[in-house]
Every structure is written in C-alpha cells, then in structure tokens.
C-alpha cells in the first residue's frame, strides 16, 4: 500500500492522520464531558444528551442568522457569543428538566433513562416543528473553515484546532470547577455520601440542580462547536448517543480523568483502524474491542468503585 510513496509523503500523511485522531479525540471529549458530569457524579442516565447538544447547535444557527442580518461586520466573531448563549440555553433547559423531572427520580436511576428518552423524543419533535424537518445550514465564519499549511504536504484544518482548543479549555474549566471550587467539593461530597453531605449543611438539592445544568450546558457548547464539522437537524443528536455513552462507561463512570483517557484510546484505535481498514469495519471492530475490554474489566479504565 505504501510502496509508491516517498518517505516525506508518508511522514506527512501519518502526521495528518495523527492529527485526525486528535480531532476525533477532542470531539469525543466534548461529547462525553457533559455526560460524564451528570452520569458520573449523579448516576443519572441522560438519554436526551444528544438533544441538549443539538439545542446548542440550533442556538448557534439562530445567532449566526442574527449576526448575518443585523451585525454583518461582527460576523467573524459571532461564534464565541453563540457558544456562550448555547451554554446558557442548554444549561437553563437542564435546570428546568432537573427541577421538573429528574429530582423525583434520584432513587430510580434506570427510570431516569426512560424518562429522558421520552424527553428526547419530545425535544426532537419540538425542533422539527420549530426549525423544520430539514437540516439547517449554519454558516461558519470563513476564517474557521480554512486550513493552515504547515509544510508543503501537511495541512491542518483550523476547525480541528478550534475543537481541540475548546476541548482542552472546557476540560480545564471542568477540572477547576470540580476540584478547586466549593461547588465541586460539594458535588463530590454528595457523590460519596448524600445523607452525610446534607447533614453537614450542603444544599444537596441545589447542588444537584446546578450539576445537571452545568452538564447540559457543556453539552450545548459541544453541540455549538459541532456545527463546524457535522449536521444540525432534529434527529442529529441521536448520532452521538452511543459513542458518548461508551466513552463514559469505558472510562469508568465516576472519573473525569477516565473519561478523557477513554476518549483518547477509543479515538486513536478508531482512527488508526479507519486508516488501514474500510470505515464500517473499523467502527464495528472498535465497538467490539471496547465491549470486549468492558467484559474483562467492567468497571472501566479508571474506576472508584463499582461492585454493589
């Protein structure tokens, strides 16, 4: 397969393929972080995670239209505002859903799965009624859609860099919030022992709500970023849900570090196999390997405790 190519060409291709793996890694991290917060810290299975992402994407779409119509001069910068608004919109919806639905179900984690699946159907239909069944085209500022030539042979997509920077940024922010803030301390305390946490004066209800809201907000930002690389339609959220859950479970649900490690290993495995095999087979093999490892090590890569 490589006989006809010079060393420099091969090097360039492998460099770019490595970069493609990193982009995939960033995409997985963005998808999974919000879910890891909610699932890992609260034990809630949010099947509507994809729909929260798509809400962020639709917010981005609306903001881009607004800028194109009223502030064309600032169009190239709208994306940053869109991401903030996506966070607020998805986060606010998350707070509302926690208040109206999830808080009644904390003792029945499997039931959150069913209820949020129902929620995802409702959200899909709402998107369809409001934005139409067709995908919407989100115009991305030109500077974000190009590529950056590094050498004659290596070109790096700017949106890939953007996704990577965002993934790193959000991971750091989540890390700081979780491990350096009072809120994070409370979340972790509740995760370890809800009753004791309440007894020492932590407002568990409000902390739960905020955690859920922040998890959904992060999903919204991810959805906003994915308008650069994917489609925005009522059912697009479902494309992400299996991958997302696998990343979180494979990492060991309770651990954010595990989520990142698992995103890294899955993305590298998939991108290497995609390069040497056909696309469909690469996907199946990746999933099979993940499931195989999970069967040997069901608690995931990094786990605090699992056995019950």
């Amino acid at each position, binding site marked *: 397969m490589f006989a006809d190519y010079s060393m420099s060409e091969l090097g360039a291709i492998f460099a770019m393929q490595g970069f493609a793996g990193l982009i995939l890694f960033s995409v997985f991290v963005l998808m999974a972080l919000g879910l890891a917060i909610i699932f890992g810290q609260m*034990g809630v*299975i949010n099947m509507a995670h994809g729909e929260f992402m798509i809400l962020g994407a639709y917010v981005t779409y609306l903001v881009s239209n607004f800028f194109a119509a009223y502030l064309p001069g600032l169009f190239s910068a709208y994306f940053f505002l869109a991401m903030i608004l996506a966070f607020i919109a998805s986060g606010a919806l998350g707070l509302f859903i926690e208040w109206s639905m999830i808080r009644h179900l904390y003792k029945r984690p499997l039931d959150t799965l069913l209820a949020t699946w129902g929620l995802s*159907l409702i959200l899909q*239909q709402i998107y*369809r009624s409001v934005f139409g069944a067709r995908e919407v085209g989100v115009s991305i500022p030109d500077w974000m859609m190009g590529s950056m030539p590094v050498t004659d042979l290596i070109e790096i997509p700017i949106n890939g860099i953007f996704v990577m920077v965002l993934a790193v940024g959000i991971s750091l922010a989540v890390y700081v919030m979780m491990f350096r803030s009072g809120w994070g301390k409370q979340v972790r305390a509740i995760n370890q022992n809800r009753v004791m946490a309440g007894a020492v004066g932590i407002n568990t209800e409000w902390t739960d709500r905020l955690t859920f809201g922040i998890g959904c907000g992060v999903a919204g930002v991810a959805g906003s970023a994915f308008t650069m690389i994917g489609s925005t339609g009522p059912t697009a959220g479902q494309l992400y849900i*299996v991958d997302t*859950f696998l990343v979180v479970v494979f990492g060991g649900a309770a651990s954010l570090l595990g989520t990142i490690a698992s995103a890294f290993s899955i993305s590298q495995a998939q991108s290497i196999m995609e390069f040497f095999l056909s696309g469909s087979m690469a996907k199946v093999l990746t999933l099979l390997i993940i499931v195989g490892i999970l069967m040997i090590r*069901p608690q995931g890569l990094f786990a605090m405790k*699992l056995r*019950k």
Partner: protein
Amino acid sequence: MKANALFTRSEMIGFAILACVIFLLLPAVLDTFRLNLFGKYLTYSFVAIGLALCWGAGGILSLGQGVFFGLGGYCMAMFLKLEASTPENTAIQSTPGIPDFMDWNQLTALPWWWEPFHSLGFAMFAVVAVPVVFAFIIGVAMFRRRVGGVYFAIITQAFAAILTILIIGQQGFTGGVNGITDLRTLLGWDIRTDEAKETLYYVNGILLFAVLFAAQFVRRSKLGRLLIAMRDQEDRVRFSGYDVASFKIFIFCLGAAFAGIGGAMFTLQVGFMSPTLVGIVPSIEMVIFCAVGGRMSILGAVYGALLVNWAKTTFSESFPELWLLGLGGLFIAVVMAFPNGLAGIWSEKVEPRLLKLIKKSPAQAASPAQQSTPAE
C-alpha cells in the same frame, strides 16, 4: 390459597381475561388487517414478558432485547427466504437459486452458514438457540463479574449498535439495510393470504400463552422469589450461599429465548425482517412496553405492548406530525406518575373496587396486602 399453586385467584382471572381478549374479543371486532396488526403488536409482548422477568423481577435492565428479537426473526427469515428463492423464482439472476440480495452483491454460492436453514426444524431450533447462546455469552461475561444496573444496560445497548452495523455492513450475507424481504411461503403454505394471517394470529396467541405460563411458572417457583430477593438485596442472597450469577444468567437467557420466538412470529406475520428492529431505538421501545404494562407484571407486559403500539398506530394515522410528542409524554408519564404501569393501576384502583362490587365484603378481598402489587 396455597403459596405453591401456579396461580393466585386474581392471576387466574387475569389470564382468563387476557385469553378472552386475544382469542375472542380481538378477532370478533377487528378485520383481518387490524387483526394482523395486533398480531404484530403481540410479537413485541414476547419481548416485554421477558423484560418483565429480567427487569421487573430480576432487576436486570437490558437495552439490547432487540438483538434477540432480531436474531430470532432473522433465523426464521433465512429459512423463508431460502424457500422463496427457488431456481424458478430467481431465474433472472446470474446465479439462480440463491436469495436475490446475494446475487446483487456478486455472491455466486450460498454461504455455508446459510445451508442448515434449508431445514425448518433447524430454523426453529435456531430461533431459540441463537439468541440464548448470545445471551449466555453476554450473561456469563457480565454477571460473573457482577456487572449490573446501568453498566449492563449500556453495554447491551452497545451490542444492539454493533449488530445493526454488522447486519447493514455485511449486506451480501444479510440483506443489509433492506433486510430480508419478500418472504412468501412456509413449506408451500402461502403466508401472505388473509386466511394464513388469521391462522398465524392464533398460533401466535397460543405461543404467547405458552410463554406466559412458562413465565408464571418461573415467577411462582423458588427461582422467582430468589430473583426478587436478589433485586432488592443481592448481597444477602449471595451470602446465603446462592449463586447469584447463575440465576441472572438463566433469567437473561430465558428472556432472550422469549424474544427470539417473538421475532420469528414477527417475521412470519409481517413477511420480512429488517435491521431497524434490531437497533437501539426498538430495544428501548420494548422496555417502554414493559414499563407501561407495569414492569413486574407479565400480563401487564402484554397489555403494555398492545396499548403503546395501538396508540402509536392511531396517533400516527390521525396526527402524524405530533405523535412523537404523545409517545414522549407517555414515557415520562409512566415513569413519573405511574411507575407500576397498567398493572399498578389495575391492582390499586380497579381490582379492589371490582371485587368490592362483586363480593360486597371488602374486608377480605381488597386488602392490599394480598394483592400482587408490584414492589417499588
């Protein structure tokens, strides 16, 4: 009432009512087309019964029941497809005598693992055996390592995703995204005629009752009580010396066998099998059928499957653009407001009043302690 009898009296009444509904009421009020639809819904109730045992009694929530339903359905479809692909019927193909989709994908001979499906006996065996073997492998791997709850749910979901991608990707062997279509006869008997559809409906009903009796037997046996004990306090059961994992594997395999039979009946009644019945969405919907019926109740599971599917068909006929809202609302309502589903409503609200009316001696019959009320 003796504790080891197969039925309590109220369960007996429940079975009798269901039998009347399936064998008398529905055939009397529905035309063949609607009856066939209800026959299709009933095939889902096989899965829901299995889930009532695994999830309701055993606490094992599988989001991959579609896999077993699909495997059973595909085994049956392979047999029917081979029968439909006679050299005469497929004369225009470059290789007559093999299924049409194989010919389109340049296969020139039947793959070896299709060969046994020339035999109906083997196919019927496979309908049960293939799902059970799959379930056994998954069960051993997971339950021996004490994986349960949410993790189990998500890993089974991944299986559903894998199998869908495999079936779609290997279209030369499986028919791909189109599925295995255009099934015609079963040992020369045309399954597409109205009479055949009615016969199949009754066969389906009888099989359903066989499965219901099996499920009831398991529930009333010591195993059933152990399952409930495990669901509520797994460690105590384990410390009492029971092999928890084996019980779980058994019940999971049983659920898979039920689902496989349901899948085969689906193929027979609908006339094709496709990967859309294997994936994540149908698997979750099947859980909903069970939840709507009342997750503990095997009879409830049947009603749940009927009600949800009937609502789905009706909704989508009258308000095609809004039915997702209704379905989503139903999911949430069942979980939030009626966690015990139809069976809960029946045993908490309807049955006591009914008995009051009949017996006029409320003290005996309506005391909730005697009801088989599903536990939280």
